[in-house]
């Protein structure tokens, strides 16, 4: 299993029948300190994670098939947990409630919404 940040969503309307109706997310594998480590993968979401969450990803076919309860499922990469906190060498290196933005928004993107309390109704 490895740590990863959910960075996006993948929509595949034409796919093997097994994937119909299942949520696929784009995950960026991370080292323990939150450094990117390897190419992004597409993972099946079983826990209701979303972009911005740090998650635990299992990358093994037999376990994936057991989790989905489909004996011939072509699945390998599965999100199995959302990380609440992570501590390394006695220091908290990640906390879900204080997670930073994944990366700066691109210049072309619209400005982020103001926080709820600043929003005018």
């Amino acid at each position: 299993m490895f740590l990863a940040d959910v960075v996006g969503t993948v929509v595949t309307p034409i796919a093997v029948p097994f994937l119909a109706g299942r949520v696929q997310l784009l995950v960026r594998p991370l080292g323990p300190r939150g450094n990117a480590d390897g190419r992004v993968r597409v993972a099946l979401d079983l826990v209701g994670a979303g972009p911005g969450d740090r998650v635990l990803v299992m990358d093994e076919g037999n376990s994936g098939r057991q989790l989905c309860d489909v004996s011939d499922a072509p699945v390998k990469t599965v999100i199995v947990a959302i990380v609440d906190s992570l501590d390394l060498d006695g220091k908290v290196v990640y906390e879900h409630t204080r997670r930073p933005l994944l990366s700066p928004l691109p210049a072309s993107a619209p400005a982020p919404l103001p926080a709820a309390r600043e929003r005018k109704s």
Partner: protein
Amino acid sequence: MHLGRVIGRLVATHKTPGLSGVPLQIIQPLDENGAPSGATLVATSAISSGPGDVITWIDGREAALTCPVAFVPIDAAILGFAEQIARLGETIARQES
């Protein structure tokens, strides 16, 4: 499972028996920006993909599970046609089907 783009097709007449009728395509793995990342490889296709399509693919033993005969010697297979990929709300690939 990974992202990729189909960049070519491969035809082989003499194949392992279980692979007859299974399309072979050359794919280029993609990174989160939709840019090429890593070496190209040959994969079977479980869908009607073709050159230019952004797809999701799977490697390892599970790839064989997408074939009509599940016990075939392949280690990469195209799973689906990625119509839209969004990264942090920004669309990095979109295809009109």
